[in-house]
C-alpha cells in the first residue's frame, strides 16, 4: 500500500499550504511524483514536491501550466483541484456585490473548469486518470451569514464534477468530489480572525457561531488537514477503482441529512 502511486504524476493546486500541502505530502508518501502550484513560492518549501508558480484565476495560466508540466515531467495521472476559497465579506446577502459573486465563481469553479479542460485530453488519450475536486460541506448545506457566495460556487462545482464524471468515466477517468467541513488551517484561522474583526466578537464566538450555522459538529472539533488528505489519498489510489461521480462529505458528522 505504501508505494501504490509509484510511477504516477500528480498535480495539486494550492498545494503549498493547508489542505493542499497535506494532500501533496500524502501522495508523496504513496510514491507519486508531486507537482504543486500556488501564486507564489512558499517560504518553507517541501523540497520533495516540485513547485510551479501559477495564478489559475487568469484564463491563460491553465494551459501554460499544463504545457510546462508535460515538457518537464510528463503526462499527468492525478489532478487534485484543491485551490479555492473566498474573500467575500460577511453580513449576508446584502453585503455581496457583483464582484464577490464573480470572484468566488472564478476561484472555486472556473479555475477548476479551465484546468480540467487543459488536462483531460492527455488523460483521455491514455484512457486513464483521476480528477478530484475539493469542495465544501457548505455546497450541500449552504450558510448565508458569511460564505454565501462561496457555498453557491461550491454547489456549482459539485454539479460540474458530477457531470464531468458521467462524461469521462466511460473513457477510463474517475472524477470525484471531496467536501470537507471546517478544517484547522492557517487560512481558516485567518478567516475566523476576519469574522471576529468584522463583528467585534471573539474568535471563539465566531467559531462557535459558524459551527452552529452548520448545525453543529458532532465530533466537536475541526478536521486536521491530514484527515482530509487521507481520504483524497485513498480516492486517487487503485483501491478506489470503482468509485466515480461521488461527493464524499468529510465533516465530523455535520451534514444532518441522509
Amino acid at each position, binding site marked *: 500500500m505504501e508505494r501504490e502511486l509509484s510511477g504516477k504524476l500528480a498535480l495539486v493546486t494550492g498545494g503549498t499550504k493547508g489542505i493542499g500541502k497535506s494532500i501533496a505530502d500524502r501522495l508523496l508518501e504513496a510514491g507519486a511524483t508531486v507537482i504543486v502550484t500556488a501564486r507564489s513560492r512558499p517560504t518553507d518549501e517541501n523540497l520533495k514536491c516540485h513547485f510551479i508558480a501559477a495564478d489559475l484565476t487568469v484564463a491563460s495560466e491553465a494551459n501554460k501550466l499544463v504545457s510546462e508540466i508535460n515538457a518537464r515531467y510528463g503526462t499527468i495521472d492525478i489532478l487534485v483541484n484543491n485551490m479555492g476559497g473566498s474573500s467575500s465579506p460577511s453580513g449576508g446577502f*446584502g453585503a455581496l456585490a457583483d464582484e464577490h459573486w464573480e470572484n468566488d465563481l472564478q476561484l472555486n469553479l472556473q479555475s477548476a473548469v479551465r484546468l480540467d479542460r487543459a488536462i483531460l485530453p492527455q488523460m483521455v488519450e491514455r484512457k486513464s486518470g483521476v480528477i478530484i475536486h475539493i469542495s465544501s460541506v457548505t455546497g450541500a448545506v449552504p*450558510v448565508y451569514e458569511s460564505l454565501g457566495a462561496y457555498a*453557491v460556487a461550491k*454547489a456549482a462545482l459539485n*454539479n460540474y464534477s458530477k*457531470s464531468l464524471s458521467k462524461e469521462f468515466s466511460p473513457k477510463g477517468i474517475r472524477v470525484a468530489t471531496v467536501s470537507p467541513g471546517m478544517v484547522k488551517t492557517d487560512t481558516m484561522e485567518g478567516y475566523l480572525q476576519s469574522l471576529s474583526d468584522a463583528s467585534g466578537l471573539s474568535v471563539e464566538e465566531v467559531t462557535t457561531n459558524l459551527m452552529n450555522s452548520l448545525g453543529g459538529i458532532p465530533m466537536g472539533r475541526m478536521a486536521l488537514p491530514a484527515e482530509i488528505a487521507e481520504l483524497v489519498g485513498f480516492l486517487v489510489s487503485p483501491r478506489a477503482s470503482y468509485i466515480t461521480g461521488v461527493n464524499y462529505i468529510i465533516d465530523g458528522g455535520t451534514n444532518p441529512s*441522509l
Partner: protein
Amino acid sequence: MEISTKGLSGKIALVTGGTKGIGKAIADKLASKGATVVVTARKPAEENIEHHFIMADLTNSGDIAELSKKLIEKYGTPDILINNVGGTSSPAGGFQMLSDEDWSRDIELNLLASIRLDKVIVPRMIEKNSGAVIHISSLNGKIPLYQSNFSYGVMKSALNAYSKTLANEVAKHGIRVNTVSPGMVRTTAMETFLQSYAQSIGKTVTEASQEIMASLGGVPMNRLAEPEEIANMVAFLVSDDAGYITGTNILVDGGTFPAL
C-alpha cells in the same frame, strides 16, 4: 365552506421572462388567481398580452435598476417575485465544447440575473415584512446532462444553493423563498433546444427528445410537462396555502428523479 378562487387578490406579482413559455403560463395563472401581474422580457410579446409589461434585459444591471424603479413607482413593492428567466445557448456535445464565454453567459442568465433582481426587490419586501420569491430552476440542477446542456445544469445547482441560502436568511423577515425544478416542458424554447440538440447529434427531434428522456433515467409519465402544470405549482407556492413552505426545491418532473 366558501373556497375563494381569488387567493392572490390585491397582490402585485413580477414575472421575469413572462411573455412566453413557462413565464407566460405563470403570469396567466397568477392573474387568474386575482394578482396584478407585471411581466418583463427583453422585448414585448408578439401577441397582445393582458399583463402589464416593462421591458428589461436582466443581464444588464442598469436595466434592473430601471425596472425596479418603474415597477415600484407604478405599482408598489411586489408581493410576489418569480425569477423565471433562464436558459442556455451553449453548444451541446460535452464539456470540451464549452468556451469561457459560454460559461459566462450561463452564469449570467441562470444565476446572476436572479441575484441582481432579488438584491433590489427583496430589501423592499423586508421593509414590508412579507413576500414570496420563486426561483425557476431545472431538474438538471439535480440530474445534470453533460451531453446536451453541461454548463446550464451546473448553474442551476448554483441557483438552488443560492435560493436556499436566501430563504434561510430572510425567513425571519416574513419572506418565503422556494425553487421549482421542472423536468422537460413543452414550450417553443424547448422545441428550439431540441432542434439544436438533434442537429448536433444528427438525429430527429423525436429521437433527440427520447434520448434526453432516457439519459434522465426515463420519465414515468412518458411525456413533457405543459407550462400550466409548472404554473400550478408556482401559484400554490406563492399563496398563503403554502405558508409554512420555504427553502425547498420542488420537482415537477413526471416522476423522473429516481432517488429518495
